[in-house]
């Protein structure tokens, strides 16, 4: 039976330790469930930036073993809301952790100066990185790739200047433009003086049951390569959603005031493919290749023929946050803004939606030229947005320094709370499809569209109307089930490839017997309840979940919303969550 190991690195003392956690994986499967168990052991009085607060990276029993099991889960206490911080990233990190022979990587403590860590198998080196201070997330990768050679595949994980500054929505960048984007892991790394880490190693599991494994592998491989549902992620990628969402008035436009954007054609998946798409690339061991790389060529000297060309990745969330939601219909402008985000290492959704708040706050008089030091903020003004970003980076004045604290923080300080489209301080993702998209953001354990896919429930309503109760129970069920793919850890794009019986077959082929459908479901409910317990113990209150005022006036795909409907469904969701907490005696 393959073993699972955890590496703990104490950045304060420089010590590292490896422990066998096979029992933990036998009980909790892996990934998010294992990490939730470990994070839950940290006392609630340990704040997000306390040195003893851990960052926990976890992979699972399928990681690097089966196709599309590409993600690494990160759990931490979020500096954005003080509650559960959870974010997932692809790239080569899962492969590299597996190669290092570790399924859980835990950082605690705080390095005495800016540092980076090299993990090669069991060997750990903590090295000074003061010469990387202020370096962009992209340049940091280039430098470390040069400096830290390896015999094996590597993963390079790092923060940009935003993480060093402690922006609570700073992201962590993994390899070629994958991210632990949401909830501020970058700020936690920055607080620990951890600029980057490199993981590599030549460890592997021996293939014991070759016949069963090969049959199962081929079945999954063929499904991934041939299935039409996976093909869409490769072809146009998630921006394939832009035009259909726009058609049903579900594409957030001008800070969520509308669901349709007159300039959608200029930022659609089709437009990006025609004009910018240079290639699709994949996370390690994914045959889909959903990462869409855009190329933008710019002339930077009008007098001479001097050009620059850069590549930046794009997807639906980035297109909405820096396109329709800011009324930007030029894909060139959109990509140029995205590149700034990439270099700084901000979560692109949070920075874009916070900028949209600033525009609304300016238009409605909560802030003015005094705060912006003369800049006039309006929708659709990409040139001014570039200036705003430059001023944030430079820490131009208090207002600009505040902007990278997020829309919830800013609206508490300057007013305009109606226009801060955030749930649990986490800026909303790219859907105004109706009640259940927002209910999902609000109730989700990580306030993410990926918690329960409420936007999908709204769209199903358009096909076949259901009651609010039916849809709420549906998204709760989905939120619970997603604990299993997130524990294996497979990419959620492939969630339909890994159905229950397929998962059991895959576990059996590796010798992990004893799992049943009932046991998987029980673990899913338990892991989900553990996360709710965690955040409730750290200040989360169902009663504080509110719709931002703006959203009460927006015509969504499924009509206008009311506070009463929202509150009723929050209460229903709360009832379901509390029943699970009670059942598992958490």
């Amino acid at each position: 039976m393959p073993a699972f190991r955890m590496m703990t690195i104490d950045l304060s003392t420089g010590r590292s330790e490896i422990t066998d956690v096979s029992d933990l994986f036998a009980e909790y499967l892996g990934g998010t469930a294992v990490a939730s168990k470990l994070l839950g052991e940290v006392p609630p009085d340990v704040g997000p930036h306390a040195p003893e607060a851990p960052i926990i990276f976890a992979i699972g029993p399928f990681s690097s073993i089966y196709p599309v099991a590409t993600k690494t889960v990160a759990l931490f206490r979020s500096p954005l809301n003080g509650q559960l911080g959870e974010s997932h990233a692809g790239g080569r990190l899962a492969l590299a952790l597996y190669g290092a022979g570790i399924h859980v990587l835990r950082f605690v403590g705080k390095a005495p100066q800016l540092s980076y860590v090299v993990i090669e198998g069991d060997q750990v080196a903590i090295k000074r990185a003061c010469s990387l201070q202020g370096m962009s997330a992209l340049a940091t990768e280039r430098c470390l790739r040069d400096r830290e050679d390896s015999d094996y595949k590597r993963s390079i994980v790092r923060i940009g200047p935003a993480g060093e500054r402690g922006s609570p929505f700073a992201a962590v960048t993994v390899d070629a433009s994958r991210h632990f984007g949401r909830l501020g892991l970058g700020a936690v790394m920055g607080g620990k003086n951890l600029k980057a880490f490199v993981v590599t190693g030549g460890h592997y599991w021996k293939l014991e049951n070759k016949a069963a494994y090969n049959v199962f592998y081929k079945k999954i491989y063929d499904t991934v390569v041939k299935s039409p549902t996976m093909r869409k992620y490769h072809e146009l990628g998630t921006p394939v959603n832009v035009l259909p969402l726009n058609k049903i008035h579900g594409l957030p436009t001008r800070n969520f005031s509308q669901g349709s954007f007159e300039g959608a054609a200029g930022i659609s998946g089709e437009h990006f493919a025609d004009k910018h798409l240079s290639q699709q690339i994949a996370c390690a061991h994914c045959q889909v290749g959903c990462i869409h790389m855009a190329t933008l060529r710019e002339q930077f000297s009008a007098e001479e023929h001097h050009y620059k060309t850069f590549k930046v990745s794009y997807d639906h969330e980035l297109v909405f946050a820096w396109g329709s939601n800011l009324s930007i219909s030029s894909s060139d402008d959109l990509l140029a803004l995205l590149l700034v985000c990439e270099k700084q290492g901000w979560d692109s959704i949070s920075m874009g939606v916070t900028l949209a708040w600033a525009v609304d706050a300016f238009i409605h008089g909560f802030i003015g030229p005094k705060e912006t030091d003369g800049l006039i903020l309006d929708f659709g003004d990409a040139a001014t947005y570039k200036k705003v970003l430059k001023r944030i980076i430079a820490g131009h004045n208090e207002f600009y320094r505040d902007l990278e604290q997020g829309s919830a923080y800013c609206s508490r300080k300057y007013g305009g709370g109606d226009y801060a489209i955030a749930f649990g301080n986490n800026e909303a993702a790219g859907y105004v499809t109706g009640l259940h998209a927002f209910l999902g953001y609000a109730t989700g354990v990580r306030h993410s569209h990926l918690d329960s896919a409420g936007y999908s429930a709204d769209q199903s309503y358009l096909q076949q109307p259901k009651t609010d109760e039916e849809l709420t129970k549906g998204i709760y069920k989905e939120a619970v089930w997603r604990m299993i793919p997130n524990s294996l850890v497979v990419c959620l794009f492939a969630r339909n490839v890994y159905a229950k019986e397929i998962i059991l077959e895959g576990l059996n082929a590796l010798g992990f017997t004893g799992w049943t459908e009932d046991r998987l479901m029980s673990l899913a409910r338990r892991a989900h309840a553990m996360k709710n317990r965690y955040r409730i113990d750290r200040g989360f209150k169902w009663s504080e979940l509110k719709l931002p005022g703006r959203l009460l006036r927006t015509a969504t795909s499924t009509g206008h919303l009311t506070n009463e409907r929202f509150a009723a469904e929050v209460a229903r969701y709360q009832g379901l969550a509390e029943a699970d907490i009670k059942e598992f005696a958490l």
Partner: protein
Amino acid sequence: MAKLLRVLEREHCIGCYSCMQACSRTWFSALTCEKAALRVRNYTGVEGAFSIRVCYGCPNPDCAAACQTGALTARPGGGITFDPKKCAKCGDCARACVPKALQWDYEHNQPIPCRQCGVCVQFCPNGVLGMIDPDAPVTEATAKPAAVPAPTAAPAPAPAATPTKEAR
């Protein structure tokens, strides 16, 4: 003429490593990409360009010429045969391969010769790799994947020694 492995469409590569996984598990029963007799090399950052280094089965291989012990020898029809019993584990062979196509097994400290079996081709989702008759003009028909023979015995394990990083 025996078919040999070729990179047909480098620009189609998405960097999924399925080819390397297939080679490692087929010949070493190893669930990893690190035992493969080919490499998909990454380059820095978001640029996302890949370089695929496969054994081209040279008629006069530099790796065999560099081998002082006769462990690596040229094979009729292209490529090499490897006798692990004769291997001095010096790494000269891997260093001699200009495109760095000959891989090194750091666990057993010896080269990983490509068998030209084509299993990597079967697990490439985008037609990057193909088995072709090098003497025939490349057409769509000749670029189709070949059948994979059953693996013969994997190279014998050898005592660990200091890996030769330059070999990669």
